[in-house]
C-alpha cells in the first residue's frame, strides 16, 4: 500500500450547470481523512502550497461555526477563504459555505458557494468527493469571467468532456 501511487489522481468534472465535482481516494480510514480535513495543525500541512505562509487557520467545527484560511503566497499576495459549517456528520460528511475573499464583487459573501464533502470508506480506502455548488447564476458567471485569472470555480455542463472528445478526435 504505497500512497505515492495515488499522487496526481484527483479528478475534476462538471456534472451540472452550477456544480463542480472533485474526486480522490485515500489509503486511510474515513476517520483519519476527516481529522486531517478539520484539524488546523493538519490542514496547514496540506491545504496551501509548499511555499504558502499561513496567517490564519481557524476551524470552529460545529454546525453554525465558521472557518477561515488566509495564506501569504510567493510575491506577498494574501489569499483568504472563509465560510460557515451547515452540517457536520463526522467522519462522513461536511456541508459548508465557501467565500473567496478576493472575489471581484461588492459583497463576496453573497457569492458563497456551497461545498459538500463526503468521505466514503470501503475496505480501508476512503473515497472523497467535494461537490461545489454555486448559488446564483450571476456569481457563477462572474466566476467564469474571472476564472482565468483567479483559478476560482467554474461550472459548465459537459463541455469538458466534449473538449476532451474533440481534442482526441482532432
Amino acid at each position: 500500500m504505497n500512497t505515492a501511487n495515488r499522487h496526481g489522481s484527483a479528478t475534476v468534472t462538471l456534472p451540472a450547470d452550477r456544480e463542480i465535482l472533485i474526486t480522490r481516494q485515500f489509503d486511510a480510514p474515513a476517520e483519519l481523512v476527516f481529522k486531517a480535513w478539520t484539524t488546523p495543525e493538519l490542514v496547514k500541512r496540506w491545504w496551501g502550497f509548499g511555499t504558502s505562509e499561513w496567517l490564519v487557520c481557524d476551524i470552529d467545527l460545529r454546525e453554525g461555526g465558521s472557518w477561515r484560511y488566509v495564506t501569504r503566497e510567493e510575491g506577498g499576495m494574501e489569499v483568504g477563504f472563509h465560510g460557515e459549517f451547515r452540517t457536520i456528520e463526522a467522519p462522513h460528511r461536511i456541508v459548508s459555505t465557501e467565500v473567496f475573499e478576493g472575489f471581484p464583487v461588492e459583497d463576496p459573501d453573497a457569492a458563497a458557494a456551497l461545498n459538500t464533502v463526503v468521505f466514503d470508506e470501503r475496505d480501508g480506502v476512503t473515497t472523497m468527493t467535494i461537490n461545489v455548488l454555486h448559488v446564483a447564476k450571476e456569481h457563477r458567471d462572474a466566476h467564469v469571467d474571472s476564472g482565468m485569472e483567479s483559478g476560482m470555480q467554474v461550472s459548465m455542463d459537459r463541455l469538458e468532456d466534449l473538449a476532451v472528445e474533440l481534442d482526441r478526435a482532432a
Partner: protein
Amino acid sequence: MARTPTTTDAFNAVAESSRRHLLDAIGAGEVTVGELVDRLGLSQPQVSKHLGVLRAVGLVLVRADGRHRWYRVNGPALKPIHDWVGSFERTWNVRLDRLDDVLAELKPKEETS
C-alpha cells in the same frame, strides 16, 4: 460585474447556459440550424442568435453545402476552458498529494495509541 452584450472570448460565450446547451446539442457531429431548433425546442431566431455569438468567438465553425449550412464545434477553441479545468485539477492534486503524506504519518500513530 456588468456583462458586455458582445462576448470576446470562449469563457464569456459559454457563461450563458443556452449557448452551452447549444454546444452540447451540436456535440461531436455536424448539424443544421433546423436540427438544433428541433433538439433544443428554441425558436430559429434564438438558435441563430446564439450560433452567431459562438461563431464570433470561434467556438463554432460553419460549412456551406448547397442550400444547407452545417455547424460543428471547434475543439481547439474550447481548449482554454479545458485548460482551466486542468489547472483547477492540478491545484487540488497538489493539496491532496500533500494530504496523503499527512495521512501516512497519522496512521501509525493512531494504530499504536
